[in-house]
């Protein structure tokens, strides 16, 4: 199929094929070849494993699937995973935005170092991050002991600890998506706003922020998706109390250890569906925002 479509791009359009309907005359060559490659690649790398997952879960049957998924323990873990991922992504959206703003707008000694630091959560093994965070926030850790002393607050081994771990690993996504857009924002638009009588705050709120919102939303979506799938850093700090601070990925591993393969596949499918719906909604929202001022 790949070979056939690639030869199509060379020969004049004879019509009658499905692809010829999709294809418009273009100076960019290789539509057939690249589309074929993309579909094959995505099928092998993404769709096939997911299909296998769904197939495994399907072995339970319709009612069996819901029985496996609608247990109080799974539902509680679902709330923990998705609720805290959303919360962490929201925190990252705010503070990641500020980090990106400072890195783009101001020059200060060591700004390159700060810029490089942002990527560390990408590179660090998540287990290392989880152990470091739990050591810090444990009741006898540096920060944890102070929080305990001053506020009587327990962070590690509670849902709050999970939120902190997810915030840590999600930060680079927001910074790295907002940064290039902010960099390319022409200063003239802000100057125009100032000349038209806007205060700094009005110029930010009405001119700069709306231009960055689609990128911010992308960063939010990526940080959220990463948070939902995160395993390594969370299990060390979460305490993993069923119904309180147990996340879905951990539940899947527990089910696997009990040889409940179909049950763990069912939980996986549930995560997959929920993530897909949320990400699709975010993408649509973004496409709608972009379409309003696309060229």
């Amino acid at each position, binding site marked *: 199929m790949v070979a056939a479509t690639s030869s199509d791009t060379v020969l004049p359009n004879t019509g009658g094929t499905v692809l010829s309907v999709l294809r418009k005359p273009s100076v960019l060559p290789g539509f057939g070849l690249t589309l074929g490659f993309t579909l094959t690649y995505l099928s092998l790398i993404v769709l096939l494993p997911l299909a296998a997952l769904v197939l495994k879960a399907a072995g339970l049957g319709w009612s069996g699937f819901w029985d496996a998924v609608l247990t109080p323990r799974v539902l509680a873990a679902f709330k923990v995973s998705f609720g805290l991922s959303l919360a962490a992504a929201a925190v990252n959206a705010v503070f990641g935005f500020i980090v990106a703003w400072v890195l783009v707008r101001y020059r200060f000694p060591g700004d390159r170092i700060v810029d490089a630091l942002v990527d560390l959560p990408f590179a660090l093994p998540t287990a290392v991050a989880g152990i470091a965070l739990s050591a810090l926030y444990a009741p006898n850790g540096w920060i944890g002991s102070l929080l305990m002393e001053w506020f009587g607050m327990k962070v590690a081994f509670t849902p709050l600890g999970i939120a902190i771990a997810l915030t840590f690993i999600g930060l680079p996504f927001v910074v790295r998506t907002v940064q290039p857009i902010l960099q390319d924002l*022409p200063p003239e*638009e802000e*100057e125009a706003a*100032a*000349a*038209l*009588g806007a205060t700094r705050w009005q110029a930010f709120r009405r001119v700069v922020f*709306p231009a960055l919102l689609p990128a911010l939303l992308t960063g939010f979506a990526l940080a959220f998706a990463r948070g939902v799938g995160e395993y390594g850093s969370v299990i060390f700090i979460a305490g993993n109390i069923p119904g309180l601070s147990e996340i879905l990925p951990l539940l899947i591993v527990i089910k696997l250890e009990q040889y409940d393969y179909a049950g763990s596949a069912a939980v996986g499918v549930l995560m997959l569906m929920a993530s897909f719906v949320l990400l699709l909604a975010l993408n649509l929202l973004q496409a709608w925002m972009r379409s309003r*001022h*696309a060229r």
Partner: protein
Amino acid sequence: MAIQVSGITKQFGTFCALDSVDLEVRSGELLALLGPSGSGKTTLLRIMAGLEFADSGSLLLNGEEALSLTPRERQVGFVFQHYALFRHMSVFDNVAFGMKVRPRGQRPTSTEIKRRVMELLELVQLAHFADRYPAQLSGGQRQRVALARALAIEPKVLLLDEPFGALDAKVRKELRRWLRKLHEDIHITSVFVTHDQEEALELADRVVVMSQGRIEQVGSPAEVYDRPASAFVYEFLGQVNRFDCVVADGVARTANGALSIPADGTVRGPAIAYVRPHDLGLSPSAAGPGRVSGIHVVGPDARIEIDLAGLPLEAEMDRERLSALGLRPGDLCAVHIDRARVFPQP
């Protein structure tokens, strides 16, 4: 409203963008700041708007010291070369922006804003495009939106930074005429920056020629073109033939003796003579001393390249006159100079 610039200096690192500039913009006039890139014209305009800060000097807007005021306090309309429209706002919202960001007490009601925006869009002939986004407009339309947006705050001064710089030749010409007419209708004090001498001469009431952070000459378009104050102005305004010469007894002679030009009395010794191509007369002459080395026809005009004993010259005349003379490439001809300017060698 009048603008008084005195002793404005601005340094970017070691580069001196403005070197103690003095300038008066009269109330209601349309003034052009003309100069090559790097001459400081845009910096001066941005200092007037409050988008750039002067190192020293003073700026009076209507008699009031304005350097310490923010752009929003100065109430100037500013139009950018690349429009700087707000991409995520419709044309209507772009124009309404200046009114919507006013403090609550001074903000017009929404019906008043709507009326005013539509009035302005009518003025720039874009009333049908109120709901469009900037990306859906052509360059000329975008610049008219930018103009309407600047006028919406009822500015006392309109400042335009290369307003036609990003447009193609035809649109540029149309918009230029249109701006001239608009200025005649509303008579707002306006300053525009350009590097295009034709634009400055056609559009402005007065032209300020700038070079290397200094003002070379201020005058009406006819004044600066006919009586350039310096060699720079002469060279910058229009095509020019330039020769090194020596002036003695009121006559400028080139080194090889091929050309002698009557010079006015003040210049003596080594000098530079300038002759505009259309001030150079030709006649066929078998004895020379010139030779036609090339002819280029540009629309109704012809440009004739002459080789005068090794000195390259360019003459310009209309095509009818050229065909009456019957000159062809390779012919010998005599050269007369109707008008020249001689400046002392710097």
